[in-house]
């Protein structure tokens, strides 16, 4: 009887980990402005973190040659010449992580000029870690010959 109790417990815990709303409630939408410097062949900062619903303004400043920024998922793009800061403003209404990349051929390593926009926390990472820990516990706690032990 005892192993079945554990199995039920693990299944319940697994369901909780997978579906429970995380205590980090969505922060109130805010206005965020990022100044992103583009220099061959990188963005600084290369990772932008925002909360879902934020109004995000990205100021693209090029410090060497003409660069661009195309934001995957949102389909937005801007081009910045040195001395001409350009801005793009959008509402981060799609959560997840999105790549942005240079869309102006700027030199030899242009294809590798990428950055990341992270909208919201990466919850599935934490849920996956929880499920992995749970599975490890299950292997350790349940008898090795389960479920045969129950019939025997």
């Amino acid at each position, binding site marked *: 009887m005892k192993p079945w109790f554990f199995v039920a417990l693990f299944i319940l815990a697994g369901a909780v980990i997978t579906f429970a709303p995380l205590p980090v409630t969505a922060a109130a939408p805010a206005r965020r402005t990022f100044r992103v410097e583009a220099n061959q062949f990188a963005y600084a900062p290369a990772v932008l973190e925002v909360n879902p619903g934020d109004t995000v303004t990205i100021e693209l400043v*090029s410090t060497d*040659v*003409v660069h661009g920024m195309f934001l995957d998922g949102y389909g937005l793009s801007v081009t910045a010449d*040195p001395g*001409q800061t350009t801005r793009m403003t959008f509402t981060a209404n799609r959560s997840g992580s999105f790549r942005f990349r240079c869309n102006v*051929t*700027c*030199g030899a390593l242009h294809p590798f000029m990428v950055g990341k926009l992270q909208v919201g926390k990466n919850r599935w990472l934490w849920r996956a870690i929880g499920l992995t820990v749970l599975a490890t516990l299950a292997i350790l706690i349940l008898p090795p010959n389960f479920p045969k032990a129950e019939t025997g």
Partner: protein
Amino acid sequence: MKRTELLSRILVITGILIVLAAPIAARAIGAQGVIEVHGRIAESGGWTPSTIRVQAGMPIHLRLTSDDVMHGFAIGQSDTPAVDVLPGQVTEITLTFDKPGTYAYYCTRWCGPNHWRMRGIIEVTGEEPVSPQVTTPPLYLMLNLDIDAPHPASVTLDRIPDAQYGEQFSALLPAAYLTPDYYRSHSPAQIYLDLRADPALVSLAGSDIWDLVAYIWLSNTTPEGLAEGQRLFAQNCAACHGETGGGNGVFSANITALAGKTPANFSDPAITLGASPALLQGKILRGGMGTGMPSWGPLFTDQQTWDLVGFLYTFQFK
């Protein structure tokens, strides 16, 4: 030989000749006026060909492409809008030059540290000999200005001179101060001294005189001219002189390292108020200064240089 056989032989030979001659003729006719222009960053050679020769009045068809990064193409002193030149793509543009002469073409997109060196020449030859053009030399040469000499103005401003505010004293102002000739040949600091010494204006305080100086500047500009000056500044000057004219553009560190001088800081009253429009125009036209300042003479029209000069004073006046 039968007559019919002779005829058929002639027919076959004519056919073969036509087939052979067609592509040669097509190339000779089709290639007329079509020029393929390749852009590369200045360090790897700039434009190929760097000199384009064309007849006046004959349309030329340019096929522009880039061998490395994004470039732009525009003709100096012309209204033809700039086009982008991208690697892997061909931008086609048709130009007709009516007047014989020498034109500059240049890159309009920052493609590398020596972007502004990427220039070429279009030589337009005409049927009639080029009439010796009666061009007036730029004002700084007529005035014998030494545009390399330092021109500090020892001025103290209580606040930003306001042209709108200065307008209320304009009734007192003798008309001679409002002429373009006077405005262009005197720095704001000189105008201030002239106005201060003028008996018609003794009743005014120092800050009111400065407002009048701003008024003289504004009456010699137009809103469209200032907007054009702002556009030219953002596109061509802001990378070194800064978007707000502070001499701190994104390349200023490179320039200071190479030349030992920072780009001119237009937000400094000592620099901007000590420079007359003629002096600023001279610097824009000639460039140099040992700082890598490009020469804009072949690229800007006379009006564009004055628009740009007028805009430079917006860093001091409002």
